[in-house]
């Protein structure tokens, strides 16, 4: 159960938080991180456009027709999972447009619950902090501390 890194990308596409939990990864400059985040943001938007459109039922107001469960549920979403032989990247987009990118090892189970817990920590220690301006880089000591605690316990 190894988590490599966490990125948080704001609604506008800027990187507001990046943190590595695993030593031994190749070092990138901070500029590289910003470019990575920006590229992902653009790619996410493109893949959202590529998503297949939900087929319109032939007679939407007909109450008699019983439709089979459709695989096209909800709105189209962008890129969610990127998996390679070395790592797996999962993207969770909140309703407000903030994206959480979690990099883990390929066989990591329970990624959904991990991302949900990280989202909870974000909602607690970042959003309820009076000294944090939304969409700005995150510099909250309690968020870092609790994130560390959570990731260390899981790995």
């Amino acid at each position: 159960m190894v988590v490599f890194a966490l990125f948080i990308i704001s609604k506008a596409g800027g990187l507001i938080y990046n943190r590595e939990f695993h030593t031994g990864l190749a070092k990138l400059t901070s500029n590289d991180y910003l470019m990575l985040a920006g590229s992902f943001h653009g790619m996410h938007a493109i893949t959202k456009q590529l998503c297949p459109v939900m087929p319109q039922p032939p007679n939407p107001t007909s109450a008699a027709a019983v439709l089979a469960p459709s695989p096209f549920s909800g709105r189209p979403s962008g890129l969610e999972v990127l998996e390679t032989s070395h790592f797996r990247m999962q993207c969770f987009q909140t309703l407000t447009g903030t994206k959480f990118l979690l990099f883990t090892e390929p066989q990591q189970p329970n990624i959904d619950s991990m991302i949900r817990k990280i989202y909870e920590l974000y909602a607690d220690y970042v959003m309820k902090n009076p000294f944090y301006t939304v969409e700005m880089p995150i510099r909250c000591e309690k968020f870092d501390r609790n994130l560390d605690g959570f990731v260390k316990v899981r790995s």
Partner: protein
Amino acid sequence: MSGAPNQTPGLRYPSNKKTIYDRNLNRSKNAELSRAAFAYLFVEMISYAQQRVRGIADLEKRLNTQGYPLGLRLLDLLLTRTANPLSSIRPTRILPLLQFIAQTLWRHLFARPADALERSESDSSQYMLFDNEPLVNQYISLPREMSQLNCAAFVAGIIEGVCDGAGFATEGVSAHSVAEQEGGGGEKEKSAKGAELWPGKTVFLIKFKQEVLEREEILGRG
């Protein structure tokens, strides 16, 4: 302020013409409040206090002012609600007052008693109330330039309201983070050791006025 309010029915003037003063006092006795709701409200209170403020001391003073009326009202409410008729009188000595604050008030606000109550060795008019992890500070991470601020100044305001309402005039009640005290002095070293275990440990310094101490001495003699 006279006559029946000629308003359309709403939250403040319900259609059965009963105002908040007609409600039973014990109705909200065991009521619980969502911690997140309070946290968001507190964020707005701090932002409001921060407008056009001139420094950290001024910001703490404003938070103190925000908590003061709460203390005045809580004193009466909590005394009314005590089950034992003997203890529902206003405390007249310093130690029962401080115990009322550390036990009853803290339990009402935070569902647990305060962690320690001490009298300062260097200054006999100063008492110290310790809280290892103030609830109001739970989600707050201070930026580096504001590391001297302690938002528990709001709770200090509540304490000041209780003391003033009970007739014990104070010079001031302030909230300080224990971790930032420099070493030196036996009592400070003891509390500094606790600060490693509890990084948010806060001490509330209650400084009573001279006439309160004189009165206490006279009452102690008689």
